[in-house]
């Protein structure tokens, strides 16, 4: 029985440690994008991973930065240790204290202070600043792991080497350094992992176009994590495992080396006298791998901004993560001669301070409707010369009306994608008659579907649903209306399965709920994995959202920015973006595009109601408005009341 418990306990620990990574590895081979349904084994995401240049570049940045940072930090750290070792105890303690403070400092403080210092001294944020920041926070780790080794140093080995005729340098490298090596190695590895792991400091110190894995993944949260990242994580995990195994093998080889050879005096042969230098096989392999990585890193990724700069210069694009087909940047370069450097953010709120404070110079940005409105009011945008954008003629007419609400007269923005909010439902899990003809938002309050409904977990979208049902504007500033909206949402609470944003889509694919409030862009994506899903826009109307290209005042390459927007409206780019995102692209050239629908088969795009709602429905739609600080406060206040009930 006791033995049983022991095994069970160990099994639990192993499960606890490795189940998450195991789950991720299994999902990386899932044909489907969904995290909840298994649709067959596939290498699809691995292929996509290797063909995704952005991901590969982020990967390259991550590892080159980690490698350079930990190498530089190791050299500096070891030298610092040598100096500190020669100090008196009191001085050394002071310096150790100074060394420990950055370790205890919150990353966010380090990150922000570094960013402010860079900007203050007029250093523009780029690859170098990230590297510098990483070196900065790695040094204390090196010192921390090397310093104790100095204390353990065999007495007087350095002097013994000098005594035997070694020069100080020779004595250091041959005698002292090997003794310090375990500490140096662990300092290096610690730095390396800290650097690879770091998000916060990188986030604040990176410049335009520099992404590491952590910042890239973070910026992709807007449209959901793609399974390519699972594939990538799996590859990295396996790589680390292999390196670990090899280094263990090397260690055990080292141990074997000596005792085996020790013989009694009378068995001694000539060979035994030849002291061996040279390396064991395992060490050779390890050194080989390290060399390959360093060379690959040095050749391919050194200061990562693209090597070839187009004849017309560089266009810096600041966009939501994963919000265009990544292949388009290459195509744009070939067609126009502009090199594109893309940089990503997750939310409008993250992008806004960057533009407002001018921490990095971008030529084109992508922003949502209400944010465009806000930025126009704050005079952060330049007018677009539509004369330079002939393709603008293809902008769909229906979207122009909505643009009046946030960019009257259309001076500052050019829509990239648009969509509506509606109800996605599983035809197998609902009564068909409920969804015949006009559907009302009230279906989400139907007791019949208790525990099967998913609502948005964000203030404005959840309020919008109730507001529309009650016949109010979704931008209402009326306290009474807000109260009614909140009461309505509270009333619905017992029926709701989950309040979810990104994973609403995945929950629906996995048949976890009957219906969910979702944006139209996610519907085609979801249908790919679950053909029982359908989408409807309720008769009361809904929110129409638009994400637009705009040109910030910091723009340095205006012509390039115009060319970029023009390119986005070309047929090829529109198709590529549509296929990649399955979001509606407001481009009339796509009206006749034949889309391979997962349910209906081949359909002409203009006939897919999901992304092209009728005029009648659109007439009852609104866009999200910027409510100003007081409005925001009111909405938060009521949201708290709702949340607390």
């Amino acid at each position, binding site marked *: 029985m006791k033995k049983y418990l022991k095994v069970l306990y160990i099994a639990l620990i192993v499960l606890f440690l490795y189940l998450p990574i195991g789950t991720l590895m299994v999902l990386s081979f899932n044909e489907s994008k969904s995290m909840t349904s298994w649709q067959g084994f596939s290498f699809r995401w691995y292929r996509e991973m290797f063909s995704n240049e952005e991901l590969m570049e982020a990967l390259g940045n991550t590892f080159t930065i980690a490698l350079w940072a930990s190498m530089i930090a190791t050299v500096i750290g070891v030298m610092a240790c040598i100096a500190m070792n020669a100090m008196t105890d009191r001085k050394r303690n002071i310096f150790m204290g100074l060394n420990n403070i950055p370790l205890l400092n919150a990353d966010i403080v380090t990150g922000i202070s570094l960013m402010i210092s860079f900007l203050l001294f007029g250093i523009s944020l780029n690859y170098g600043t990230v590297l510098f920041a990483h070196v900065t926070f790695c040094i204390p780790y090196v010192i921390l792991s090397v310093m104790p080794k100095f204390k353990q140093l065999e*007495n007087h080995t350095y002097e013994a080497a000098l005594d*035997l005729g*070694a020069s100080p340098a020779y004595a250091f490298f041959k005698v002292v350094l090997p003794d310090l090596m375990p500490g140096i190695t662990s300092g290096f590895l610690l730095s390396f992992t800290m650097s690879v792991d770091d998000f916060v400091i990188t986030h604040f110190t990176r410049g335009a176009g520099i992404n590491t894995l952590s910042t890239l993944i973070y910026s992709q949260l807007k449209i959901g994590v793609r399974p390519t990242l699972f594939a990538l994580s799996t590859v990295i995990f396996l790589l680390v495992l292999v390196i670990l195994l090899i280094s263990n093998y090397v260690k055990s080889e080292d141990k074997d080396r000596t005792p085996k050879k*020790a013989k*009694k*005096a009378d*068995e001694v042969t000539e060979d035994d006298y030849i002291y061996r230098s040279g390396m064991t096989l395992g060490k050779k392999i390890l050194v080989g791998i390290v060399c390959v990585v360093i060379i690959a890193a040095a050749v391919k990724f050194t200061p990562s901004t693209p090597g070839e700069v187009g004849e017309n210069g560089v266009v810096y694009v600041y966009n939501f993560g994963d919000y265009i087909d990544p292949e388009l940047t290459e195509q744009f370069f070939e067609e126009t001669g502009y090199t594109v450097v893309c940089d990503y953010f997750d939310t409008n709120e993250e992008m806004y301070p960057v533009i407002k404070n001018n921490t990095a110079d971008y030529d084109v940005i992508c922003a949502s409707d209400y944010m465009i409105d806000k930025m126009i009011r704050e005079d952060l945008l330049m007018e677009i010369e539509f004369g330079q954008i002939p393709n603008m003629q293809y902008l769909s007419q229906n979207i122009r009306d909505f643009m009046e609400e946030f960019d009257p007269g259309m001076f500052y923005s050019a829509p990239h994608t648009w969509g509506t909010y509606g109800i996605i439902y599983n035809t197998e899990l609902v009564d068909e008659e409920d969804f015949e003809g006009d559907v009302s938002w009230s279906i989400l309050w139907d007791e019949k579907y208790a525990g099967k409904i998913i609502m948005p977990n964000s203030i404005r979208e959840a309020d919008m649903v109730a507001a529309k049902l009650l016949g109010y504007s979704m931008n209402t500033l009326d306290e009474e209306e807000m109260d009614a909206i909140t009461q309505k949402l509270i009333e619905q609470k017992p029926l709701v399965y989950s309040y979810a944003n990104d994973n609403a889509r995945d929950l629906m694919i996995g048949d976890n709920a009957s219906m969910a409030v979702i944006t139209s862009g996610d519907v085609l994506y979801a249908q790919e994995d679950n053909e029982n899903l359908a989408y409807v826009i309720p008769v009361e109307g809904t929110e129409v959202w638009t994400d637009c290209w705009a040109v910030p005042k910091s723009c340095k390459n205006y012509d390039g920015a115009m060319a970029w927007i023009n390119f986005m409206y070309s047929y090829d780019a529109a198709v590529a973006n549509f296929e990649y995102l399955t979001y509606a692209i407001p481009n009339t050239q796509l009206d006749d595009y034949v889309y391979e629908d997962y349910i209906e088969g081949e359909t002409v795009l203009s006939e897919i109601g999901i992304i092209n709602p009728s005029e009648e429905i659109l007439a009852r739609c609104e866009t999200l408005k910027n409510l100003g600080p007081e409005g925001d406060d009111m909405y938060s206040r009521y949201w708290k009341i709702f949340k607390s009930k």
Partner: protein
Amino acid sequence: MAKDTTLIQMKDISKSYDGEIVLDEFDLNIRENEFITLLGPSGCGKTTTLRILGGFTKPDTGKVIFEGTDITDMPANKRPLNTVFQKYSLFPHMNVAENIAFGLRISGKSAAYINDKIKYALKLVNLAGYENRAVTSLSGGQQQRIAIARAIVNEPRVLLLDEPLGALDLKLRQEMQYELIRLKNELGITFVYVTHDQEEALTMSDTVVVMNKGYIQQMGTPEQIYNEPENAFVADFIGDSNIFDGIMIEDRVVEICGHKFPCVDEGFGRNKPVDVVIRPEDIIIGKPGQGMIDGVVTSNVFIGVHYEMCVEAGGSEWLCQNTRSFPVGTEVSLNVEPENIQIMNKPQSEDEEAISLEEVLGEEQQEE
């Protein structure tokens, strides 16, 4: 044995650390082929002297002259001397052969020569066949012998040894003492040996230099140092001694504890206060009334070869050693042969002041 040619001369060497004087105008001549031992309590400056010789410490003033050449400013790695350190200081990441080959590789010797030398040196220290052992797998005595082998393969003119046996247990230490004497005779090089162990110094050396507080107290053969200590410090430091305040009544008569003892010393003058040294093994214990002075045994400890007893006589404690045991409380008489009474002048200056036994012990304990 020791030829009379000076190999190394230390002239007027002074050294202080943080204002504390360690060596003060120190002079020392080391002759070729000599086994010279610097002996003294910790803090006496003996290790500093060795480090100055090895080139690890620079003297504040003074010169080190090696065969007529001033080597005071020569860095350690250029000096024709090699050192065996207190805690061996072997290179832990190298095996035995690599450790021994270290100096030879630097001087660019051929592999064949190096291999011959390793073999020769290991044989010399009785560790043949240990070439490929990891140094960390060896015992303390073995490591020490490897450290010696590593030093001697470079054929230094002088071997400096800094308490090399300090970390070994008693039996091993005695064994190594004979090894060192043998080695010295086989190699025919000069040994400068530092220790605080007087037995070690007396066993091995041609010349013993007793040091205290940065000064040489006495320099001579082991016999001279033991039998004719020049002052109370030396007497106290070398072996166990009874040191009494005495008065030289006249030539050949000294008064100790109120009793007149015949002795062999002359020329101290009349009624002069002196220090009197009597070795415990030289005190003859007899029946009451048969000796010079009567007393009572106050303690008795068996320490192996003999009994060590304290006898209260004439108001002083007399430390005696005898193979016969006298139980505590026995009334006895004490007698000393005149030639076994060593008369010394009282210290003239403060620097020469003998430090008390307690102080010596105290410092030793501090060191540990």
